[in-house]
């Protein structure tokens, strides 16, 4: 049970449409796991199942050792979550946002005080700790949102396109925060559309039409598929799915390489 996430044949159907089709993968403790896929490939649905927002239609999954069917409450206490929209209240100051989420996760008042001070000083935000968040530059907001998601010290944090709309320098700095968190033992599951970021991950999966088409360390995957970059690999895997009908339950026939098991 040193797996942060274990998904086995996890499936979610919406009517006749199968958004997530029997995916199996795991995320290790302290690992940075990239969760890639074109829009509509099923990433968000998978994340919603793993964060307890959506009940799976089939298969099984454990998050932080808790069952997604029966222990949603425990899962919610063990995970952090940050979306591309940062989830901060813009009319509240960083301090107020931290206090709010501290309260929501049932931290004690001394804990909140201590962690607020530590967080603001680590991020260098002491001077703007009482300004409304909307006045902060996007990069600062993003770092703050990430730290707030880690406030209650979750064992896994889900980052849903955390860097969209952010400049390359700030993105690089943000990844340093991700590595720091991973070094402290926090598992990170991150979705992204930036393929350079995919290369930073310990391991990654590429979803195509609800299935995991590739899974492994970036170097391994590139070698297996004979591509020079994850970008090439992604385009090659995703293209057949994009050019055909959007609702297609079987993987493409002309799919080269070793995309995981056609149905």
């Amino acid at each position, binding site marked *: 049970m040193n797996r942060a996430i274990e998904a086995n044949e996890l499936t979610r159907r919406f009517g006749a449409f199968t958004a997530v089709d029997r995916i199996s993968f795991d995320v290790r403790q302290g690992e940075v796991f990239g969760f890639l896929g074109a829009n509509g490939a099923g990433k968000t649905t998978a994340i919603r199942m793993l*964060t*307890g*927002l*959506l*009940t799976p239609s089939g298969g099984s999954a454990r998050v932080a050792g808790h069952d997604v069917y029966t222990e949603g*409450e425990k899962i*919610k*206490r063990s*995970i952090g*979550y940050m*979306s*591309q*929209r*940062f*989830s*901060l*209240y*813009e*009319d*509240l100051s960083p301090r*107020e946002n931290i*206090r*709010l*989420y*501290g*309260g*929501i*996760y*049932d931290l004690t008042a001394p804990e909140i005080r201590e962690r607020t001070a530590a967080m603001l000083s680590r991020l260098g935000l002491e001077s703007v700790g009482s300004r*409304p968040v909307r006045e902060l530059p996007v990069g600062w907001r993003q770092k703050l949102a990430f730290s707030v998601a880690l406030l209650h010290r979750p064992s896994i944090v*889900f980052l849903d396109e955390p860097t969209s709309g952010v400049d390359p320098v700030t993105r690089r700095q943000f990844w340093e925060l991700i590595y720091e968190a991973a070094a402290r033992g926090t598992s990170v599951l991150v979705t992204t559309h930036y393929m350079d970021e995919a290369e930073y991950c310990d391991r990654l999966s590429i979803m195509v039409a609800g299935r995991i088409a590739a899974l492994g360390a970036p170097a391994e995957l590139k070698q297996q598929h004979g591509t020079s970059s994850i970008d090439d690999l992604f385009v090659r895997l995703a293209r057949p799915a994009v050019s055909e009908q959007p609702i297609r339950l079987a993987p493409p026939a002309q799919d080269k390489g070793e995309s995981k098991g056609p149905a």
Partner: protein
Amino acid sequence: MSPLVALLRKETYHIRRDRRTLVVVLALPVVQVLLFGSAIRTDVDRVRLAIVDPAPDEATLELRNRFTATDTFRLVAVVPRASDLDPLFRTSQAQAGVVLPVGFAEDLAGRSPAPVQIIVDATDPNTGSVLRAYIEAVIRGYELEQVRLKADTTTIQIGATSRMRFNPTRESSNVFVPGLMAFVLTILASLMTAISLTREKETGTIEALLVSPLRPWSIILGKVLPYLAIGVVAAVAIIVEARLVFGVPLRGSAVLLIFEAVLFILASLALGILVSTRTYSQRVATMGAMLISMLPNILLSGFIFPIESMPLLLRVISQVVPGQWFVTIARGIMLKGVGLEYLWKETLVLGGIAVLLLAVSTRAFKARLG
């Protein structure tokens, strides 16, 4: 407890820092009472009266004096021919006219019927009939006095007097204020809840709440309680202001009235939540809240239009509009001074609607998660 306190504090910040909302919340009750209390009046006062008196004699002068002796009428013209009234009515210089006959004094002395015609501007039919009744009352009073002067005991007289109970001077503000409370509370509760929940969807913050260990009911409670508190304050403000400015009485229990207001606010809040589960932008949320909560609560509550005179279909619909029940209850408590012993049925219905709507909206909110 602590997570809920954190949510409540956050919601208070939102309300305090959103200037426009704050202005609406603070000014709405005050301004609405002034507007409805003074501008929109249906009671009749200082009626512009024109009298057609082709042949003035002591009897017509006396009757004319009776009209001018009260504050109810203001004599704008005395003209010789009935046709002279027409331009006065068309230009709204006169609202009512009384046409006296030639030889009015002789008719009265000779005890033959004296033909007097009453003409009123019935552009607004309600005002029109009130005017007619007022004028008839003046003429009847004069007639009775004449009969008495002649000490004529041979005719049988029925001295019917009427009393307008609970609102003897027929002040329209008395009737408006309970409806006005429904109106203001609906806006505060439905609209604000719908907008603020939808805003959290727009900014994506709702996701962070949903993946947190917060239960759906505590997210809803965190939203509902601040607006409930604001609603109660607004209700009290309206009652106090109505009393100070327009002398509207509160004859029954203030505590009971507040309790009923809480039930009504809860029903409105629930409608606001329901709207927010179906909308993704604040603009649509505003329209939705207006459509399913504000308009029915204003139009079908008896606030402006009497329910009794509506077509059957609307009367049936009005039975499930919480505002209808609240207005009935509030009028009973404020004007008639009755308590729960007479209003328990209405209270049960209002409470039932509130509970049902809260259950449905919490369910809809949860359903959105799965």
